[in-house]
């Protein structure tokens, strides 16, 4: 069985090490916070916060305390606040160890497309371009294929790029791949998914 959303998030959480400052994107990446266990992880919210806490209890929402997805959240004992220029200063300056992001397409050279589909409603890139250009490690979490069954792990992206050669690791419902010299390397497959099935769902070059 391929991994479901929560299993993908749990697998992505294994990438995080004690002491890391990490930025989680919207969607499945947000779920990663539920699986960090005892590890000492500080979550950054790029609208100006380190040490993001869980959603507030009903009645305790604060309009001045939101995450980058504009959801109400809470602070922790370790929390600090700062402005957007400093927030992206720490992102651009390489101080954030890793970003876990969703994607529409990833290419074998590490190119990432996750912000725009030409001809469709364009909402904007938000902080995605800054994050992928600046953080230490970019981990993509996404379904391996789109709803038509086409691979999202490609030889070259077809959509407008968010960044070039930025992705380090791809975690999909079928397994885990690393961007290496010459293509992608299979690190593991999801429980019950064979390497042949993973290869068949992947357009990108797979190297041994």
């Amino acid at each position, binding site marked *: 069985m391929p991994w479901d959303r929560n299993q993908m998030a749990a697998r992505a959480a294994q990438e995080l090490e004690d002491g890391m400052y990490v930025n989680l994107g919207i969607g499945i990446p947000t779920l990663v916070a539920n699986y960090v266990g005892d590890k000492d992880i500080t979550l950054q919210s790029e609208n100006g916060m380190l040490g993001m806490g869980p959603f507030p209890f009903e009645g305790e929402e604060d309009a001045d305390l939101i995450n980058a997805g504009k959801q109400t959240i809470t602070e922790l004992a370790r929390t600090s606040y700062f402005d*957007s220029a400093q927030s992206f200063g720490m992102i651009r300056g390489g101080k954030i160890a890793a970003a876990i992001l969703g994607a529409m397409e990833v290419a074998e050279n590490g190119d990432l497309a996750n912000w725009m589909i030409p001809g469709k409603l364009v909402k904007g890139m938000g902080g995605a371009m800054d994050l992928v250009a*600046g953080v230490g490690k970019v981990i993509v979490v996404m379904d391996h294929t789109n709803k038509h069954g086409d691979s999202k792990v490609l030889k070259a992206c077809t959509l407008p790029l968010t960044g070039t050669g930025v992705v380090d690791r791809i975690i999909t419902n079928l397994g885990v791949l690393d961007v290496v010299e010459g293509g992608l390397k299979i690190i593991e497959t999801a429980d019950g998914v064979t390497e042949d099935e993973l290869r068949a769902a992947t357009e990108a070059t797979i190297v041994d």
Partner: protein
Amino acid sequence: MKKVYGTAAEALDGLLFDGMLIAAGGFGLCGIPELLIDAIREAGTKDLTVASNNAGVDDFGLGVLLQTRQVKKMMSSYVGENAEFMRQYLSGELELEFNPQGTLAERMRAGGCGIPGFYTKTGVGTVIAEGKEVKQFHGEDYILEEGIFADLSIVKAWKADDTGNLVFRKTARNFNPPAAMCGKVCIAEVEEIVPRGELDPDGIHLPGIYVHRIVQGAHEKRIEQRTTRKREEA
């Protein structure tokens, strides 16, 4: 010099003109200068270019200036929450310059620091880099981005003293300090103005040198995505 004004309209007096560039603080609907936006709507100033991370929602924040067609161009990183924005943009009535969020913040900060341009890796190899100078540093490509020098900055803070020293609250700080810095004139609307000496000098988030006019008022502070968790059953 008197910085405190009675109303947002009075604080804006003599500063507005058609075709001007306004930098606005806020992220989503959090920490937005809602009173000044409403007063600009009342003033009817047209052909505005607005540098702001987002464009509000249809009936709140910068969205109200879109409803009245006062905005000619937006410089933003994300505009997905505003249907009227999308309608005007797709029909060609509204110009849009997408800026990566960190690039937009740094363009404001740089403008406020007298830095006309800076190089960044953000956007290299993407549509954002089109038409921009590329320069190599340490073997890697960077693109040139320009500082923003606004005619007017409108920001929201939590508290001010009468000299314009500002304190923000939690994530409502966001774009407000860089937006405040990049304007020729900056107006801050706040929830409370306290006498000088009441704010801890070590706890000032933005020194009053950047703030020319202050107005106090009641803020709606609308929540865009109310998310909660259940209390554990006792």
